C-alpha cells in the first residue's frame, strides 16, 4: 500500500512538473513581451534613436526590397534608429498570409494588407491611428489635408486604421496600362494609328508575317496574356472595361447615374471584347499558353523579346522589360496605346476618382511602440522625408542646380536602363510607406515632390520610347488617352476599394463568381468561334446559379453607402 501511494505521488509530481513548466514558460513569454513594450515606450518620448527592428508584412511582393541596406535605408536607420524587416507572401496569395496571421494571432508591427484589411479589423488587430495622428503626426495630417475624413473606416466605426498609399493631389502624367506593342513592330509597320483592336491586330499580324522568327531563330509570339495566375484580372478581364468605355471598378460595372452595380461580365459589350480575344486565338495570334503559364514563364517569354504584343499594366511586365533594356534590346520593349473595341468607345482609365483612399499601411496591436512608429511614418510624410524617398540623398542621387533638383546622368541612366539594381542599391521606390504627395505637386522650394513630372518622364524614356513618341507627334504615352477632365469624377472613388464584410454571404458568392470566371473566361476565349456564344451563355448561367443577383444588390448598397459617407 505504501509503495502504491509513493508511486501515485511520483506520477502526480511528474504531471504537475510538466504543467508548471508549460504554463510557466508561456507566462514568461507574455511578461517579457510587455516589459519590452514598456521599456522602449518611455525613451521614445524623448526622441530616442535606440536601434529598433520592426517587422513589416506587405501584401505586395517587392523582389528588390533591400532590408535597410540601400543608401536610403541606411540613412533612415541612422536618422530614426528603426530598421525594417519585411515579409512578403510566399507561394500563396496575400489572402493566405493575412488570414493565417489572424488565425495564429501573431502580428508584425506594421502591415500593408491590401484588400485583407477587413480581416484584420474584424479580428481587432489594428490600432486606431486617429489619436496618434492628432498627437504625433502633423505632417501626415498636412498631406491628407481635407481628405482626412476619407480615411475613416465606415459609417459605424469612425476609426482610421490605415494610411492610404494613394498619392495626394496626384496628376497622371503618363499611362502605364493600355495595349502594348514592341517598338520594332511600330517602326517596321510605319507607325500606324493604333486605336481599335482591329488596328492592334493588323499591326501584330503584319509584323508576324514578315518576321516569324527572332534574330536568334526563335519563333515569335503574336500576343501573350498573363492569365495563369491572379493577374488574369489585370491582363484579361480589366482590359474588357477599358476597351468598352468603362473605368476599372474591380469586378463590377457601376452605373454612374444610378450607382447600380452589376458584375461586369454581364455587360453585352464585354462579351464582344472576349469574342475578339477568341478570334485572336482562332487566327493563331494569341499565345496558346496564355492561361496555363505561370508568372515567371510569362516574364521569361517577354524577356526573350519574342512577344510582339501585350495587354497588361506596366508594373506587371516592367521586370521583364527592364531585363530587355539591360541587354540592350530596346526594339523589343513596349509602347502603350489606349485601344478600344471600336471607334465608338473611349478609354476611361483616367476617369477621376477624387482622393482614392485605398490600400494603406497600418499599425497592429502587437506593435511594441506605436508612437515611435507613427513618428517614423510622419517623418516619411514630411517634406524632407518625401524628398528622400522619391529623390534619394542630395549629392549622391540628385544635385541642386540653380534651386532645381537635377538627377545626374549616370544615376538617371542606371534608373532608366537597369531599374531593378537601381531600386535595390539606392532604395528609391522601396520606402513608400506613408502619406505622400503625388506627381505634379510642388514643395516649398518650388520643386516637384516626385521624380515623375513632364520633363522628367521624358528623360526617363529610353531612346526607343522617344523615337516612337516623336513619330506619333506626342510627348508622353498619356497623350494618346482622353484628357483627365473628359469624364465626370466618380462619386464613390473606385469601387475596387470597397471591402466586403469578411465571411459574409456576399463575400462567399463573390468568391464563387471568381472561381467561375477564372474557368469560363479562358474556356470561352480558347473555344472554337462557333462555340463561343454557347460557352459565354453557360458562363452567365453559372453566375446566375451562384446567385449573382444577390451579390449585385449588396454591392449596389455598398457603393451607395460609400457615396453617402464621402459626400458628408
Amino acid at each position, binding site marked *: 500500500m505504501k*509503495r*502504491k501511494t509513493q*508511486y501515485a505521488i*511520483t*506520477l502526480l509530481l*511528474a*504531471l504537475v512538473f*510538466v504543467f508548471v513548466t*508549460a504554463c510557466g514558460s508561456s507566462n514568461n513569454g507574455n511578461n517579457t513581451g510587455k516589459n519590452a513594450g514598456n521599456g522602449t515606450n518611455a525613451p521614445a518620448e524623448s526622441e530616442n534613436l535606440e536601434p529598433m527592428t520592426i517587422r513589416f508584412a506587405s501584401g505586395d511582393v517587392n523582389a528588390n526590397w533591400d532590408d535597410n541596406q540601400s543608401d536610403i535605408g541606411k540613412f533612415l536607420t541612422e536618422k530614426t534608429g528603426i530598421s525594417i524587416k519585411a515579409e512578403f507572401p510566399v*507561394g*500563396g*496569395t496575400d*489572402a*493566405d498570409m493575412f*488570414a*493565417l496571421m*489572424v*488565425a495564429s*494571432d501573431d502580428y508584425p508591427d506594421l502591415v500593408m494588407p491590401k484588400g485583407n484589411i477587413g*480581416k484584420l479589423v*474584424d*479580428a*481587432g*488587430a489594428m490600432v486606431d491611428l486617429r489619436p496618434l495622428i492628432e498627437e504625433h503626426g502633423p505632417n501626415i495630417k498636412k498631406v491628407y489635408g481635407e481628405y482626412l475624413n476619407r480615411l475613416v473606416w465606415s459609417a459605424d466605426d469612425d476609426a482610421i486604421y490605415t494610411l492610404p498609399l494613394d498619392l495626394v493631389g496626384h496628376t497622371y502624367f503618363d499611362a502605364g496600362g493600355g495595349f502594348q506593342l514592341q517598338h520594332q513592330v511600330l517602326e517596321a509597320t510605319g507607325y500606324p494609328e493604333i486605336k481599335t483592336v482591329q488596328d492592334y491586330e493588323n499591326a501584330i499580324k503584319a509584323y508576324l508575317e514578315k518576321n516569324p522568327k527572332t534574330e536568334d531563330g526563335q519563333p515569335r*509570339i503574336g500576343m501573350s496574356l498573363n*492569365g*495563369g495566375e491572379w493577374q*488574369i484580372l489585370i491582363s484579361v478581364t480589366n482590359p474588357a472595361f477599358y476597351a468598352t468605355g468603362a473605368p476599372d471598378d474591380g469586378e463590377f460595372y457601376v452605373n454612374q447615374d444610378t450607382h447600380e452595380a452589376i458584375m461586369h461580365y454581364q455587360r453585352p459589350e464585354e462579351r464582344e471584347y472576349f469574342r475578339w480575344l477568341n478570334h485572336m486565338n482562332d487566327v493563331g495570334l494569341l*499565345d*496558346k*499558353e496564355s*492561361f*496555363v*503559364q*505561370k508568372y*515567371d*514563364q510569362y516574364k521569361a*517569354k517577354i524577356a526573350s523579346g519574342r512577344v510582339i504584343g501585350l495587354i497588361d499594366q506596366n508594373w506587371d511586365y516592367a521586370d521583364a522589360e527592364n531585363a530587355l533594356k539591360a541587354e540592350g534590346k530596346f526594339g523589343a520593349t513596349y509602347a502603350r496605346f489606349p485601344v478600344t473595341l471600336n471607334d465608338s468607345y473611349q478609354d476611361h482609365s483616367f476617369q477621376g476618382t477624387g482622393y482614392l483612399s485605398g490600400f494603406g499601411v497600418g499599425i497592429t496591436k502587437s506593435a511594441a511602440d506605436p508612437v515611435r512608429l507613427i513618428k517614423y511614418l510622419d517623418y516619411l510624410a514630411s517634406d524632407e522625408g518625401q524628398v528622400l524617398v522619391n529623390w534619394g540623398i542630395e549629392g549622391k542621387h540628385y544635385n541642386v542646380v540653380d534651386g532645381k533638383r537635377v538627377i545626374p546622368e549616370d544615376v538617371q541612366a542606371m534608373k532608366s536602363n537597369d531599374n531593378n539594381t537601381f531600386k535595390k542599391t539606392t532604395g528609391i521606390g522601396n520606402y513608400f510607406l506613408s502619406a505622400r504627395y503625388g506627381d505634379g505637386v510642388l514643395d516649398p522650394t518650388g520643386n516637384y515632390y516626385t521624380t515623375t513630372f513632364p520633363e522628367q518622364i521624358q528623360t526617363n524614356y529610353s531612346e526607343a520610347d522617344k523615337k516612337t513618341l516623336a513619330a506619333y507627334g506626342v510627348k508622353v504615352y498619356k497623350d494618346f488617352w482622353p484628357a483627365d477632365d473628359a469624364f465626370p469624377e466618380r462619386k464613390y472613388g473606385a469601387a475596387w476599394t470597397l471591402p466586403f464584410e*469578411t*465571411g459574409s454571404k456576399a*463575400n*462567399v458568392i463573390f*468568391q*464563387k463568381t471568381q*472561381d467561375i470566371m*477564372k*474557368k469560363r*473566361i*479562358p*474556356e470561352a476565349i*480558347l473555344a472554337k468561334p462557333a462555340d463561343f456564344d454557347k460557352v459565354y451563355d453557360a458562363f452567365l448561367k453559372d453566375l446566375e446559379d451562384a446567385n449573382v443577383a444577390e451579390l449585385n444588390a449588396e454591392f449596389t448598397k455598398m457603393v451607395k453607402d460609400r457615396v453617402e459617407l464621402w459626400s458628408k
Partner: protein
Amino acid sequence: MKSLTATDVPQKGTEKKRSSVWKRALQQRYLYLMSLPFVIWVIVFAYVPVWGWITAFQNYKPKNSFLDQKWVGLDNFVELFGDERFYLVLRNTLAMSSMGLIVGFTIPVIFALLLNEMKGQFFKRSIQTISYLPHFVSWVVVAGLVSKMLSTDGGAVNQLLMSLHLIEEPVQFMAKGSWFWGIVTLSDLWKELGWNSIIFLAAMAGIDPELYEASTVDGAGRFRKMWHITLPGIRTTFMVLFILSIGHLVSIGFEKQMLLGNPLVTDYSEVLDLYALKYGIQMSRYSYGTAIGIFNSVVSILLVLIANGIYKRVTKESII
C-alpha cells in the same frame, strides 16, 4: 500489451485481479515513467488540439473570447454538404489519391524487386541513390520542370513526339482537364519512386537467404523465387504501409495541385485542402474550414478501420 490485461489473470475475484494489475504496474514502474513524457507529448499535440473542433459549431471570430462566440449548431456542415463544389473537390481528391496509391505502390515494389535482383553492388547503390534524389526536390521546382517539359513552346515532350511524327502540332498537356490527374500522378511517381522503394528494399534484405538456397536446390527460377519468396517476405511491410496510406486518402495536401494547376483545369485540380483554404481560411471563415477538417479526419479514421477489417478477414492478421 496483451499480457498486461486482466484476461490472462486467473479469475479469482475482483480484489485479487486488481491487485495483480497494480503489482505488475509497480514492477514496471520505470518503464511507465519512461514512456510518460511521450504519452504527454501525444496528448498535448494530438488530443488537445481536437478541442479546436468546437469552432466548427460556432461562427468563430478571432477577436471574441470563447464565451462570446455565437453558436450555430450544424450550420457549417449543412452548408458544406449543400455545396456542389464540395462533391467536385471530393471526387478530385479521391481520384488523385487512389491513382497515386495504386501507382505509388505497385511501381516502387516492381522497381525494388528488379533492383534486388541486381548483381553489382556499386551499380545497384548508384541507381538507388539517383532514384531517390528527386524526393528532396521541392514541389515548386518540380512543378516548374513539369510545366516546362510539357510546354507547347519548346517543351521537351512535345518536341520528342513531333520528331517521332506521332503528333502534327504541339499538344497543350497542361490545358486538358482530364489529363491533369495523370500528370499529377506521374510527376508524383517520378519524385517519390526511389524513396518509396527504399523500405521495400530493406524488407527484402531481411529475408533469410537460406530460403533462396533451398529453392535453388528445388529448381526454382528467378521469377519463381520472386513470386514465392520475395513477395511473401515483404507482405507485412507492404500491408502496413498500404493501410496507413489509405488513412491519408482524403488528406493528400494541396501543393501539387496548387502548383501544377491553372484556371483551365480547376474542375479537375481543386482538392479538399485547396477548397478549405479558399473558402475557409482565405475568407476568414475559420469555422467552415474546421468543419472540412473534421470531415477529413472522420473519413480518414473510417477508411483505415475498413481497410484493416478487410485485411483481417482475408489474412486473419491485424495490422493495427
